[in-house]
């Protein structure tokens, strides 16, 4: 990555608290284009909150958060910050794909409709074109035979792959994964990770909150270790995961590996 290119995500001293409890205490993070970044850390460390701040599902309270060189949720003009309108925030979000721990597929829609609804209703793509693209994506995640099924008829791994296809259908510039394999039976984890690896190889910029250290070591360009709302350690996964310098990371890794 050349230095003059604006990073895809840049966080500077981002803070967030819920009713008095500080979840993020000044987080700095840089995600370059085409890179895979893994956020690891114990539960309650603020990984998911950071991810949710990036697409403005949560509002951060302090610090600067930029996606694609633009402030998230605000506009800087004449030395002031103007809060963006709901509509502008929706447009921003539509360019960032998100995959949830609990899949969150639309239960009342078929697999195909889950993948087309965003294209048709948000991006105003013609229904036929949306269906064609949806079928391509479902084939890519290996689920083209399931397009007429409802989510409840699929296994967890299949649902999560549909959820990835649904997010990709919006042609996102950035994909966020919030513990995508945590709710899956162990034998189903592999099929979801394979889709994500394939996506990483295709050059997608990805931020992945995960407990899968094997995945982080194999796929990530950078790993960030969060603990109690601050970044304890970050860097190359081979370095961070095999020769950690902080005591906290050492004890964390000894528990999860």
């Amino acid at each position, binding site marked *: 990555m050349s230095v003059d290119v604006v990073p895809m995500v840049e966080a500077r001293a981002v803070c967030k608290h819920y009713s008095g409890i500080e979840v993020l205490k000044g987080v700095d993070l840089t995600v370059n284009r085409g890179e895979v970044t893994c956020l690891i850390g114990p539960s309650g460390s603020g990984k998911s909150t950071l991810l949710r701040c990036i697409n403005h599902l949560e509002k951060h309270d302090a610090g600067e958060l930029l996606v694609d060189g633009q402030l998230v949720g605000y506009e800087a003009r004449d030395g002031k910050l103007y809060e963006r309108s709901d509509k502008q925030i929706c447009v921003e*979000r539509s360019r960032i794909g*998100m995959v949830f721990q609990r899949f969150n597929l639309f239960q*009342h*829609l078929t697999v195909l409709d889950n993948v087309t609804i965003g294209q048709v209703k948000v991006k105003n793509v013609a229904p036929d074109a949306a269906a064609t693209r949806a079928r391509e994506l479902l084939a890519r995640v290996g689920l083209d035979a399931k397009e007429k099924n409802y*989510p409840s008829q699929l296994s967890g791994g299949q649902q999560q792959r549909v959820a990835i296809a649904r997010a990709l259908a*919006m042609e996102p510039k950035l994909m966020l994964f919030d513990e995508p394999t945590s709710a899956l039976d162990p034998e189903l984890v592999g099929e979801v990770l394979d889709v994500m690896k394939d996506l990483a190889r295709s050059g997608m910029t990805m931020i992945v909150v995960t407990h899968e250290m094997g995945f982080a070591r194999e796929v990530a360009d950078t790993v960030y270790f969060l603990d109690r709302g601050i970044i304890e350690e970050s860097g190359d996964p081979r370095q961070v995961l095999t020769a950690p310098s902080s005591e906290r990371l050492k004890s964390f890794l000894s528990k999860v590996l």
Partner: protein
Amino acid sequence: MTSDGGDAVKVVPVRHVGRWIAGAVMIVVVAMLVHTLFSKVSTGQTSCHTVNGLRTCHPVTNWRFSWNIVFHYFTSSEILHGLLLTIELTILAMVMGIVLGITIAVMRLSPNRLLSSTAWSYTWFFRGTPVYVQLLFWFNISAIYQSLSIGIPFTHVAFLHINAVSLFNPFRAALIGLGLNEGAYMSEIARSGLIAVDEGQIEAASSLGMTRGQTLRLVVLPQAMRVIIPPTGNEVISMLKTTSLASAISVVEVLGAAQNIYAANYEVMPLLITASVWYLIITTVLSIGQFYLERHFARGAQRTPPPTPIARLRQDARGILAKFRTPRPAMTREASA
């Protein structure tokens, strides 16, 4: 079940003696009911004929429930007109109630405190007063407002004047009364449906870039419907019967029509039965509609949709037939090989 030797062991089912007794009692009760429904009573008169010079007399009897009179008025034009009005009032008041109910439920769940407390007050007021009183209130509203006008609030500027007496004719007063009252009940039903939708669905919709309105319309409401439909079906059936209160403010719906007829001929019971049978018929039709509507909105919630009553009958018939069919294991084995 087979023993170790491979011989079939005879299974003796449990005898449910209690069930048999309860069944027998129910059969007797139903038989008594049918008997009295179609029994005849003496009128105290006798009728005599002379056939071939022989004069025979026998007492005159009538149906206890005067089915002949019921039948006579069942499709009379007064009753059918009343029925039409009942159906119209039910549909219009329910539409009004559902639209109002969903609006108030969404307001109630709004982060805007003014909106949510307005919604709460609405429900409080309309649930807290009897619908009968509300109907009388709207029917007599012209006593306190001679005319209604649309204009700028708190000034004398008005663009449109409407005479209250002509606006609140009996039918409209009934419609407004029933609809506003229904809105309060529907809002609670709609609210429970909206709350039942998983928060994750809303987050997923937002992450796709849907606006709040789109999320509500495309994601939340369709899934809330699964929870909203069954109690709404009950509300429709309940509304059908509540419209009979409109007869008190001189709306000639089906009960009003029956009352008008028996005021002239004193056949009170047969005409009340006529109205009741019509209510039963429409309730039955509505229940069937409700079943299919529930089935439609259960899409995705259940892995396999519940069978329709017809499919269930067919299944039962197949089960009974299978019991009586003699098994032919040798032939099927050959056929499959």
